[in-house]
């Protein structure tokens, strides 16, 4: 467990360094404001769900976020341009056996798949590669949670979490728009975040309040900032069950971008 965790922690650091270099060069040449599919999220504060040594509110700088999750159609363009991310070519360490499993073939969605529905069954590696190809990045947990925290009606979010996943995921934009102008933050799919594995809960969620486990922010409800926020617990729990090469029926992503 510890081994795999440290691996998990290490990987993003390397990736982040590379990403920062790549992103910096691209970002300086692009103006996201001209892209109608992104909105500027103003800066603000995000309160982590779990207490730890630095449980101060975290400042989130202003950034751009995709209005919609990435669709099958958009992802198809990506795999066309990047053969190594096609179903038959992808390496197992970057995407597990169910990568794009609903697609008919490498470059065909098939009749069952709506090109306007969010792409799912994609790994963190694949999502990140897509974002870089677009000159973007994945949002951080803090950014993502900050954006969803604008929805004060917890029950509304809970309602989605307590419904079954439909066989066919509806198209993007078919659910609610939040106050930032972002669609589908809940009630469509789960979404990858850049540092999904930094706020880990262990499999033994009940022991995670133990302060000796500095590795984790802890999930014991006694240590939680907000014991009432079940959806947040579920998101943290969900993220913690993932590894970067996992792909799942209802897990997709959207991209973010630095302000400058």
């Amino acid at each position, binding site marked *: *467990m510890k081994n795999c965790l440290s691996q998990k922690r290490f990987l993003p650091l390397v990736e982040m360094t590379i990403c920062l270099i790549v992103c910096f060069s691209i970002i300086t040449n692009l103006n996201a404001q001209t892209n109608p599919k992104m909105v500027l999220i103003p800066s603000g504060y995000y309160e982590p769900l779990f207490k730890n040594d630095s449980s101060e509110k975290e400042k989130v700088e202003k950034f751009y976020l995709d209005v919609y999750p990435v669709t099958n159609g958009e992802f198809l363009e990506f795999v066309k341009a990047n053969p190594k991310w096609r179903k038959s070519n992808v390496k197992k360490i970057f995407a597990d056996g*169910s990568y794009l499993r609903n697609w008919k073939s490498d470059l065909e969605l098939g009749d069952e798949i709506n090109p306007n529905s969010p792409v799912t069954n994609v790994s963190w590696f694949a999502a990140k590669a897509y974002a870089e190809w677009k000159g973007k990045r994945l949002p951080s947990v803090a950014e993502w949670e900050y954006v969803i925290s604008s929805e004060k009606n917890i029950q509304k979010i*809970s*309602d989605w*979490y*307590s*419904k*079954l*996943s439909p*066989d066919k995921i509806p198209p993007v934009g078919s659910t609610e728009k939040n106050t930032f102008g972002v669609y589908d933050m809940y009630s469509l799919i*789960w979404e990858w975040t850049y540092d999904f594995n930094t706020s880990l*809960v*262990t*499999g*033994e*969620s*009940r*022991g*995670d309040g133990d302060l000796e486990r500095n590795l984790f922010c802890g*999930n014991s*409800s006694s240590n939680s900032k907000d014991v*009432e926020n*079940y959806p947040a*617990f*579920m998101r*943290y*729990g*969900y993220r*913690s*069950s*993932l*590894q970067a090469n*996992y*792909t*799942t*029926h*209802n*897990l997709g992503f959207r991209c973010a971008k630095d302000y400058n």
Partner: protein
Amino acid sequence: MKPSIKLTIISSFVVLISALFIFLYPGCDKGYSSQVQGVERAKLTSAPYVPQPITRNHPTKVIVDLETKEVVKRLADGVEYVFWTFGGDVPGKFIRVKEGDEVEFNLHNHPTSKMPHNIDLHAVTGPGGGAVSSFTAPGHTSTFSFKTLNPGLYVYHCASAPVGLHIANGMYGLILVEPKEGLPPVDREFYVMQSEFYTEGTYGETGLQPFSQNNAVDENPSYVVFNGSVGAITGDKSLTAKTGEKIRLNLGNGGPNLISSFHIIGEVFDKVYGEGGTLVNQKNVQTTLIPAGGSAIVEFTVDVPGTFILVDHSIFRAFNKGALGMLKVSGKDDSVIYSGKQKDDIYFGSNEEPNQDLFAGPITVEQTPGSNQTAVNTEEKEMDLSAFGKSIYTTTCAACHQANGEGLPNVFPPLAKSDFLNKNKEAAINNVINGRQGEITVNGKKYNSIMPPSNLNDKQIAAVLTYVYNQWGNSGKKVTEEEVQKVRKKKNLGVK
């Protein structure tokens, strides 16, 4: 001398070796081997069924495959709920292994699951009872292994965050670790697990009901059920048995909050393995506690046919929230153990003088008291008679005809200014003696009720009727014992 010493040494050596053998070879008297041999795949069952007893006399490697799946199912008639399950049903599949077995556990989380899941088996000795090692993302499988060190009946449940929600949505079941010597044979075994559901809507509110976090935190469920839904083991789905059979119930309580006071109406548990351990720690038990996240095993023989109701004897849960099941027993009656209804009599209350006659035997004409008494003539005695009549009226008649003689509209006819009463004294006497059934018109209104025959003697009837005739504007007639006796005789003759 020397050979005898030799013999002694040899014989004591033999004794020592055999003693050692008996001590060091556990269970050798039953042919039990503690060596793990072979591999088998566990056959899992859905409630209320239990896998067959394990007959092998050695531990083995057992492979268990269990799938976590989120499904929409019926919680009550017209009510649906999104259940999170172990194996597609609530409660989860029943797992049966033996003490000393080495279990390889594969937890498969269905690809369509929204949530990661894991499993904490209370039978596991190790961190989280397996929860740490079995934390599984949707569309993945986790494998871990454990040895069954302790026999008993254990709860398993999901322990993913938020734990309460995963349990409240139905993620629990039972695993039975049979002791190495096995459990005593029985004719039938069942699997019954109690749990609660916390919905936004109140009990019976139709439609797909979302989970209510507030009600869960308040420990105020809208449903308390056996085997995952209201009526899961009633009617056609009742547990069944035949008279003379020995039954074992493997009982669990998934909670998440409530303790069960488990009771079967009309049965006594011959044996209880308290809290699902291996010791029969009580015999002849009426109601046994099943802790939340705990179990109990009860055994009993069904002696007589009929329907036996399983309840949580926190009784409003049974009759208002769904904690009710049925065991239907067929077979021959045994009227010594239970007679069924032998008699249905009218009962007027224990203060009633006439009831003593019930115990003395039926009133016959010959036995009728009062016949040897002279007619009441003096005013003083008439006063007494009136008071006597009033007391009879109050205790015997007023419940229906009311203290003021007005009766109850549409149900019990009035005696006050009653045309029926005042018109025909003989009919009135006859009704008091023999009762009356069927339609009757009193003061122009129809009534159709039953007046039971009375057990009043002649003197009492005379007194009460005289009282009634002299109240509430009635005709002021007087009824004598002789008149009552005459009517009684007539009836008697009529029957003959």
